[in-house]
């Protein structure tokens, strides 16, 4: 069958390019904005996902992993005594100030544990063995700190909490939502050098269960023994940390607004260009009707044009977004684009473009085939 929709669309190449560019702009906007937001959310839970724990004991109503409150580190003994618990350790996550060689001070997020290796974090590092952290005033600093703290090398010293700490290794991929650089320090040392708030305290207890343990039963028992704390599975805790940024800050709303505006731009561009095209092709559509075509056939023509524009616009927009990824990566911004999300955006682009084409339907329905006789 002769493809009038495609031929008409490609006949006016400038208009087609404008339509595709509009859709591509909207697709890029949505992919980049959502990808960056998901990337930040991914940062906010990256340590939870890598830490090999089944349950997290937190202070009551902790909002997310970055903002933990302290409770007694001796609670860990109660946790270890619960049947089904294979191991449990204290974990401190807190913000501190680091003094830089240029005299400035910057915020840093510290993860402190007795035995990092047992829990699988940090998951990527170079330099000394992690166990060496216990041997002195040492720390591992993530590569991403270069952007905020300036260049640093293994063996150099930095001062925080009034104490000189030697950098004995570099980690990769340890991030926080707010892009505050992350360091790893021995648990006892962190307690000893910090202010009184951390003395004898921790912010979390991480729990690994016996393989045969009933997770819900252990959780209930932990909750019973620690009534002033909360107990979450790793998945729940990651969701809670993620949702904090989405729901409790303007960032989620901002992201939704950007997605909405992106969709709006796409719809307006497609609707406007297809409507103009329909008006300019009224006589042709009148001819289609005169030679026996139905309104449905013309709806299909316009709908097919919208679908073609959507496909080309998506491909171009997705290509642009992918091209931006390495550039953003250089700025320490992670853009997460999963195949699932790509499919959702593609289907969204298709559906919204088809919806935009419906603006022309009323015009089509009212086409008088008798206009073919007018000069």
């Amino acid at each position, binding site marked *: *069958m*002769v493809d*009038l929709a495609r*031929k*008409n669309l*490609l*006949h006016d190449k400038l208009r087609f390019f404008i339509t595709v560019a509009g859709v591509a702009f909207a697709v890029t906007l949505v992919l980049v904005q959502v990808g960056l937001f998901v990337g930040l959310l991914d940062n906010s839970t990256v340590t939870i996902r890598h830490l090999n724990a089944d349950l997290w004991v937190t202070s009551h109503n902790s909002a997310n992993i970055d903002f933990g409150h302290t409770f007694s580190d001796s609670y860990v003994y109660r946790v270890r005594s619960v049947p089904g618990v294979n191991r449990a350790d204290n974990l401190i996550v807190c913000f501190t100030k680091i003094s830089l060689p240029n005299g400035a001070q910057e915020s840093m997020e510290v993860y402190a544990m007795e035995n990092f290796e047992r829990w699988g974090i940090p998951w990527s590092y170079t330099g000394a063995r992690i166990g060496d952290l216990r041997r002195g005033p040492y720390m591992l600093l993530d590569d991403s700190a270069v952007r905020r703290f300036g260049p640093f090398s293994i063996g150099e010293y930095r001062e925080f909490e009034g104490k000189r700490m030697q950098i004995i290794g570099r980690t990769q991929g340890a991030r926080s939502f707010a892009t505050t650089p992350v360091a790893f320090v021995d648990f006892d040392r962190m307690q000893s050098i910090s202010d009184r708030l951390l003395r004898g305290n921790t912010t979390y207890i991480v729990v690994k269960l016996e393989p045969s343990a009933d997770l819900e039963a252990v959780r209930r028992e932990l909750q019973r023994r620690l009534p002033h704390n909360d107990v979450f599975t790793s998945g729940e805790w990651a969701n809670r940390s993620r949702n904090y940024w989405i729901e409790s800050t303007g960032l989620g709303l901002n992201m939704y607004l950007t997605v909405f505006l992106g969709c709006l731009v796409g719809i307006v561009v497609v609707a406007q260009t297809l409507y103009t095209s329909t008006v300019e092709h009224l*006589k*042709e559509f*009148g*001819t*289609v*009707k*005169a*030679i*026996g*075509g*139905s*309104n449905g*056939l013309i709806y299909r023509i316009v709908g097919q044009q919208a679908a073609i524009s959507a496909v080309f616009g998506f491909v171009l927009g997705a290509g642009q977004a992918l091209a931006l990824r390495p550039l953003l990566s250089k700025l320490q911004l992670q853009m997460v684009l999963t195949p699932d999300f790509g499919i959702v955006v593609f289907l969204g682009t298709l559906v919204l473009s088809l919806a935009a084409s419906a603006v022309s339907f009323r015009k089509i329905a009212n086409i008088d*085939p*008798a206009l*073919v*006789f007018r*000069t």
Partner: protein
Amino acid sequence: MESNVVLEAAEVAKTFTERSISVAVLHGIDLQLQRGEAVALEGPSGSGKTTLLSILGCILSPSSGRVIVNGQAVNSSRPQLLHEVRKRSIGFVFQQFNLFPALTALENVEYSLNIRGHRGIEARKEAERALESVGLADRSNSLPRDLSGGQKQRVAIARALAGRPPILLADEPTANLDSTTGLQILRLFRTLARESGSGLLIVTHDPKVSAFADRTLRIEDGKLVEGSSPMARGPQDCIPQNDQEVMERGALTS
């Protein structure tokens, strides 16, 4: 016995109403078009020619009266179904050609066949045959912008004839052509219509068109006045072969 009448109008009237002002454009039109017959419909501007053509072509519904296409009364109360009648039974040729600019000559013809339900290689071959019959086989891949006015009208004729509809309706088919090309087109159109056995109704201002018709009808103030058939011709009669013959026949009908 099968009737030879392919198109019939009985007591057809049309009144347009706008802002409570009614204008009666057609009054009690009776008309019959036989298989293989060519009828010219003449009349001054505003006499109702195009309105009548629109009603006969099932593009417009009459205010009263009946239109019978191929023996079946057209149900004017459901205008959304009129396209089915047009698709099955009517081929149009327009003054402005109305070709699709993005489609080649061949595709213009093939698309019309597609609408009529022909698909694939069958439609392609039929379109090629139709283009060949109008002498444009060598221009089948040309876009309308690359064709002359006469060639465009030939493509339009091929499009109207493709699928062999029983009725062909033409609206001023030579108005945008020079007189020589116009006569060539009329000669071709008439010949092909006769060969395909279609009834042909041509609306025209041009008295020369009547030379190619078996009958000439004249419409004045919305009423039909049957003109004389100059040489008492029937569908079997010959088509004028030169300009002199055309002038003579045209003069007799005007």
